[in-house]
């Protein structure tokens, strides 16, 4: 008989436990409206939380930019507005979300083994007005976090009820229109939350994006967040044209303008439907949480990054459709124990299960019509994980959080090519340890060690031949380990100021990247990153707050590549300075300066992208008690800079051979949006 020790012990524990009502792991009391103190709460200098007010005060061109409340994180766009954002954090070009785990209301946003990019994170379904909080954590230091969390984790949660119903209407330049209504009401002993959003945006592009979005949320909840349950349905649909990155040479010699495009049929459409539920029970001695979800995602995506290099007649446009059903369940249980007056500990056990049933492919297309199939797959990817974490307060000055996680992945790929079909599996055990020492009233020191991982595209784990070139390839491992080390300090020694400083190292066994436009997975070299992050929030007066974040990172590949050891796209620095003024009168305003640091574009560092500096601003005017007018301005200084740069070869019509060149997507020029917000 196979011994099952955990269920036995769990049963024994439950048999003797008694129920009391309590709450734990709560934020400290907010009395001055300042950002909530993380002293005594966060386990590392890179962890934190942003509340609804923080988020409402952000000036976001697109919903994904809400994640920029995480110090050091940049969210940009390199294509049509409906596409997943491009993320940068901790010396990574995270592509569309590789190594940044994003969660909304207990549902994973990252899509694994995605047709276009591993960990695809499309946040366009997010309705900012509903977000109650965003918790972030940088580095692989928590056993609770699994796939894609090595650079960081951002978890957003929607509120169960709104203090006031809200309706807003926005008009802006470049065809921007948005209407949104959200509210909640008590119903059948619980709360019914609803939201509806319709949006249109063309952007500054010669061929308008014509991005049309329709978004809806309906939630019913009973009880309190820590003692109750909720069921949520969400629906999102978006359709758009894309202006993909363009070759610098064609702009410089005047063949095209900065906002022109090469292939005028790029674009896509996305559909997302989800049904999810969260149940939580908290008492004096324990807390339990179970969340379950079913998500249906559909994406049609047409891109052309090399123009006429591979097919001078039809062009190189390709389609990457992806349809999937993701189901999962997460459960945690925490025991809260007081041993003595000063010694207490929380022991948490958790289990996570996720299954993805995926149909995706890669096709050559011309004006969105399929002309050839590169690959076509049915993927079933199933993962399970168990973790245990012990958070112990040894004394008033010392606490530790130690954990271990075991993750198991199973990949099954059935495709149009027998040699690239099969099954694979991988298991990884990852320990974490956090030590927090704070003998002073308002300062804490952190030492963090942890292992994390990202999963690789399932298609790479069983591949034997490159479907494009027909060359033999080696299968890649399913899971890739990372190791993080960090020292940090957080202090509130200066009155009304919160400061944190972190120095970290993050090693990856292999920078594995799925080459979306080639249809295979490339096993890269090991890598090492060092970085420093400095974050400040200062609120000298009730109506004035200033935040200043700066991050620097050094990323190097460690495989002895003769071309060089740089990691293309790896960001070297990020900084933000924000000033928010909110006096008691009708006027309020904020300004935000963002520095998006330089990136090497090829391994030998001979081609680099420039840093860019952008300024966004907002002015609010209260017309009546519950009626506000807001004017938002983006890129106020009208900088000409790139949202992204790549260096690779492409060929335009009329060119005899491929040309290695910088390809870029410009940031949007200065634009304004005017919003009327009514609350009741």
């Amino acid at each position, binding site marked *: 008989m196979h011994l099952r020790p955990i269920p036995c012990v769990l049963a024994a524990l439950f048999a003797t436990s008694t129920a009391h009502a309590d709450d734990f792991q709560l934020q400290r*009391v907010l009395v001055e409206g300042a950002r909530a103190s993380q002293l005594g709460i966060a386990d590392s200098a890179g962890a934190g939380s942003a509340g609804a007010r923080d988020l409402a005060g952000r000036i976001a061109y697109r919903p994904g930019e809400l994640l920029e409340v995480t110090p050091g994180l940049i969210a940009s766009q390199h294509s049509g507005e409906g596409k997943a954002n491009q993320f940068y954090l901790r010396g990574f070009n995270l592509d569309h979300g590789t190594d940044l785990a994003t969660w909304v209301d207990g549902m994973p946003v990252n899509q694994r083994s995605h047709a276009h990019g591993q960990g695809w994170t499309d946040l366009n379904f997010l309705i900012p007005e509903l977000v109650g909080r965003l918790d972030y954590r940088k580095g692989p230091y928590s056993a609770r976090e699994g796939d894609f969390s090595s650079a960081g984790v951002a978890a957003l949660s929607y509120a169960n009820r709104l203090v006031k119903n809200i309706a807003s209407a926005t008009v802006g330049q470049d065809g921007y229109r948005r209407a949104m209504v959200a509210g909640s009401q008590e119903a059948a002993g619980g709360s019914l939350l609803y939201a509806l959003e319709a949006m249109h945006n063309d952007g500054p592009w010669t061929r308008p994006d014509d991005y049309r979005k329709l978004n809806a949320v309906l939630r019913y909840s009973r009880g309190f967040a820590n003692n109750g349950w909720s069921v949520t349905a969400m629906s999102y649909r978006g359709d758009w044209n894309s202006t993909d990155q363009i070759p610098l040479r064609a702009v410089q010699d005047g063949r095209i303008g900065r906002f022109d495009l090469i292939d005028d049929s790029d674009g896509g459409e996305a559909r997302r439907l989800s049904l999810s539920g969260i149940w939580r029970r908290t008492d004096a001695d324990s807390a339990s949480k179970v969340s379950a979800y079913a998500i249906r995602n559909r994406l049609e995506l047409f891109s052309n990054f090399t123009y006429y290099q591979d097919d001078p007649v039809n062009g190189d446009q390709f389609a990457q459709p992806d349809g999937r059903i993701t189901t999962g369940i997460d459960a945690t249980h925490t025991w809260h124990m*007081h041993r003595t007056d000063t010694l207490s500990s929380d022991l948490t056990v958790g289990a996570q299960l996720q299954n993805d049933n995926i149909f995706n492919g890669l096709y050559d297309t011309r004006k969105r019509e399929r002309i050839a199939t590169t690959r076509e797959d049915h993927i079933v990817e199933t993962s399970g994980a168990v973790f245990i974490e012990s958070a112990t307060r040894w004394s008033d000055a010392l606490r530790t959080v130690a954990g271990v996680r075991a993750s198991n992945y199973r990949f099954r790929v059935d495709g149009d090519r027998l040699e690239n079909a099969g099954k694979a599996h991988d298991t990884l*055990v990852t320990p974490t340890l956090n030590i927090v020492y704070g003998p002073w009233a308002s300062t804490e020191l952190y030492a963090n060690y942890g292992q994390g991982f990202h999963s690789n595209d399932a298609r790479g784990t069983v591949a034997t031949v490159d479907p494009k070139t027909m060359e033999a390839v080696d299968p890649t491992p399913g899971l890739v380990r990372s190791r993080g080390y960090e020292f940090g300090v957080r202090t509130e020694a200066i009155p009304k100021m919160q400061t944190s400083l972190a120095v970290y190292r993050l090693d990856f066994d292999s920078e594995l990247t799925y080459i979306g436009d080639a249809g295979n997975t490339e096993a890269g070299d090991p890598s090492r990153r060092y970085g420093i992050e400095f974050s400040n929030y200062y609120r000298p007066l009730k109506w004035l707050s200033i935040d200043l974040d700066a991050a620097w990172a050094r990323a190097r590949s460690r495989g002895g590549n003769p071309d060089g050891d740089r990691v293309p796209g790896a960001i070297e620095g990020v900084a933000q300075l924000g000033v928010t003024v909110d006096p008691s009168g009708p006027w309020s305003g904020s300004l935000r300066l963002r520095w998006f640091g330089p990136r090497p574009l090829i391994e030998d560092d001979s081609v680099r992208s420039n840093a860019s500096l952008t300024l966004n601003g907002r002015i609010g005017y209260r017309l009546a008690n519950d009626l506000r007018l807001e004017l938002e301005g983006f890129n106020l200084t009208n900088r000409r800079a790139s949202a992204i740069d790549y260096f690779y070869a492409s060929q335009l019509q009329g060119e005899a051979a491929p040309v290695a060149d910088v390809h870029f997507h410009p940031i949007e020029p200065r634009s304004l949006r005017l919003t009327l917000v009514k609350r009741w």
Partner: protein
Amino acid sequence: MTLRAVKMWCALALLCVSTVASAHRFHFGMTDISYNERTGSTEIVHTYTAHDIEALLLNLYGRQFDLSDPEDQDVLRKYVEGRFWIAAQDATRLPATWIGMTVDANSIVIYQEIGNTPLTRAATIRQGVLIDFLPEQVNTVNLNTDGAVRSLTFSRKALEQPAR
């Protein structure tokens, strides 16, 4: 380390902690009610643990509250008014005016007033603040009548009590 080894470690860790005795925090609120002869009004002063009120609002609305902000104070006012009241003999509620509140890191003090009404008109008191959120919450109401103080204890089992 294999998965099986991890399971064994987990089980051992669980066994170690299972024998530990547990203690829990006490949750209580205090409400002082007295008649002010000078103004002719009945004055009500509530004191709650700031942590409990913070947790209540966080878990009710899913966001943090700034109780120095009048709009956020208003949310707490509606919550308290829905759970605390004094009723007259004919079961009508005596109209309590919200005077204001003070907040510090430890406690939240709320001031209410029933204008031109002696405490003797009070027949029943309901005090359910925080009891719906924290089943162990105990609220003590001190009735200060003619210099004598009488204490009533409210809990999940006793949400409403006679004032006399």
